[in-house]
């Protein structure tokens, strides 16, 4: 209950949103369900991409290469699934691709002391080049990704339909959010991770191996971007297209900041964005305003929300700064 008190605004907002959602559901269950499903469908890669950002940036490494990480993972996932005929292989290879890209970022920035933004840009360019250069048309998946109904939970009206009847990667995203949140704020790993991202020399003097931990975190954090990529090419659609991330990595970055580097808020921010997006397409042709004005609604609303709720987010203190042992204290 103390937690509720400390997080009054969050809890309040959640309650309001839930009530509104169910009122909407009561009015038109079909449209409500489809819009919220659409929102979540849209939000999944953003959430996953942003989680990669959370893990990396909380450890002190800026990641603007999420877009590239996702793209390479989408490519690797789809083509390995199609070549091996196994969806599981595809998803795993996708995650592995995310991890490999994460390792690249980690090695160049943490070990090689390369500027983190440049490393991210390099990832993005390399990803575009690689995936279009080696793209081969005409490949298909051997099967569709399964749809899973989570027992009991999937029977909850609205929420069950939206969140608990979905593909494995979407469920993975759903589970990852609270897990990462919990890990970050309640476990030893989290405490240490936050400390190396906030004030690495303090962690260093406390006996924590900052370099190793950054390497490991940034590398492993790539698993989420990898999952996001696999989601795009295998779960959301059934094929890879050049440039199919279509800016979602950058949106994830925006969502990461919007969500204040906190997984639960990132989740909320992604859903908000997804919902405005669903709203925009729902309104097309219904209201008599040029379609273009409606479709830029999500971007505009995000800006407005940020401007109104300004000053509330704060980046991890040492994000972007390389750590060199013995220089900090």
């Amino acid at each position, binding site marked *: 209950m103390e937690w509720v008190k400390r997080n009054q605004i969050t809890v309040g907002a959640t309650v309001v949103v839930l009530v509104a959602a169910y009122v909407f559901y009561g009015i038109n269950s079909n449209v409500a369900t489809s819009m919220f499903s659409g929102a979540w469908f849209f939000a999944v890669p953003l959430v996953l991409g942003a989680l990669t950002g959370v893990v990396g940036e909380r450890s002190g490494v*800026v990641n*603007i290469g999420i877009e590239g990480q996702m793209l390479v993972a989408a490519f690797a996932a789809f083509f390995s699934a199609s070549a091996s005929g196994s969806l599981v292989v595809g998803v795993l290879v996708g995650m592995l691709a995310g991890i490999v890209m994460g390792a690249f970022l980690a090695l*160049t920035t943490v070990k*090689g*002391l*390369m*500027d*983190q*933004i*440049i*490393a991210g*840009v*390099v990832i993005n*360019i*390399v990803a*575009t*080049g*690689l995936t*279009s*250069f080696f793209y081969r048309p005409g490949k298909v998946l051997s099967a569709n990704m399964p749809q899973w109904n989570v027992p009991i939970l999937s029977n909850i009206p609205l929420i069950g339909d939206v969140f608990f009847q979905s593909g494995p990667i979407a469920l993975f995203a759903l589970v990852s959010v609270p897990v990462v949140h919990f890990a970050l704020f309640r476990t030893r790993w989290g405490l240490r991770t936050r400390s190396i991202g906030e004030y690495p020399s303090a962690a260093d003097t406390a006996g924590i191996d900052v370099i190793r931990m950054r390497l490991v975190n940034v590398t492993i954090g790539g698993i989420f971007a990898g999952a996001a990529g696999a989601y795009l090419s295998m779960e959301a659609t059934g094929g890879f297209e050049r440039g199919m991330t279509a*800016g979602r990595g*950058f*949106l994830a*970055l*925006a969502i990461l*900041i*919007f969500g204040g580097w906190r997984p639960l808020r990132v989740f909320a921010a992604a859903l908000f964005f997804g919902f405005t997006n669903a709203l925009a397409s729902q309104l097309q042709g219904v209201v008599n305003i*040029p379609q*273009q*004005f409606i*479709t*830029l609604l999500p*971007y*505009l609303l*995000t*800006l407005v929300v*940020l*401007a*109104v709720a*300004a*000053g509330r*987010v*704060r*980046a*991890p*203190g*040492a*994000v*972007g*700064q*390389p750590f060199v042992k013995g220089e900090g204290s």
Partner: protein
Amino acid sequence: MADPRDEPSDGTPVEGAVATETAPPPVLAERGAPPPPTGVLGLLVREQSIIVPIVAVIAALAIGAVLIRAQGVNPTYAYQSLFTYSFGTADGLQATFEKMVPLILCGLAVVIPLRVGLFNIGAQGQLMSGAICAAAAAHAVREAPGFLIAVIAMVAGILGGAMWASIAGALKATRGVHEVISTIMLNSIAAGLIDYLVNGPLKDPSQSYPSSYPAPDGAKFQALGFVPIGLPIALVLAILVAWMLRRTTLGFQFETIGRNRHAASYAGIKLGGMIVLAMAVAGALAGLSGSIEYLEIDPYRYQDGIAGSLGFDGITIALLARSSPLGTIPAALLVGALRAGSSTLMFNTGIQPEIVDMLLAITLLLVSLPIIAKLIFRRHTAKSSALASSWGS
């Protein structure tokens, strides 16, 4: 509180005493750095900001050769086709130059905010907004003399880009909205608004595809031989920006904010105003490049694709240039030449144009990883300033 055992001061300057009685502590410009070498090595070390990128390009081409070979093509032939066209033919040289113009300007649009500690991902939207304003203005004054139209269009482009960028600047300065989010959002908003404009109020009805009115004939830029007019403009601006950052009080204020915001506000620099101004200047440059694209490049209209990915290329340029304004020129020359030659490369060898992206990525990687410098210069490696450190602020 005086200590009776202290000898009364006899007025001898104590500085003098210090100087004579104790050797001054060993203070060097770079504490702990070895003395700079002299001679040829010294020259190389001092010029390493030039040497490193050159070596990086050569190394990237070597790695690229492997990729090309893997495609079953002779790399020498491939590079020959690429560069012969880009530099060796009038058409190719003009294409290279034409591509350089927006690359330089968008590169500058990223460089300037970087100096203030801002990461401008919005050059894309700023360029688009400049281009559409140029198109609208040129159409509005289409009866005027061509030269005047061109000037008005450029001014409109500058204002359009500046205005669009200032939104991000103002949101940052007044509401603390992270410029990375706001510029990403503003890119999408610009795309939407302009899509509406070229489908509606600014649409040229003679075109079935959404497209603005064309630039009036007199206003179109004619190339001077194979040198497009935009090139001298861009070059002059690069020099001006370098001068501005280095020699003027404005540049000093930008730089101070970027290096230590607290010290800047202590020194009486108005952070908010300067942030907006830096973004506005950046947007103005991107916007100008938009209007030049409109005035200089066939079909002389605002159409889809006018912006290409130039805004994002600006980031690459800025990073290749290591955020130096003058560095954008060689960086743009490299990228422009690769892009210009890529279709000849495909025509002659069948190699996909994406190879260019790969070459650029490798170059960027090698330029920014301290590896090359470490290999060549060892202990004398110069430190490059970090861009990423401003991320959290």
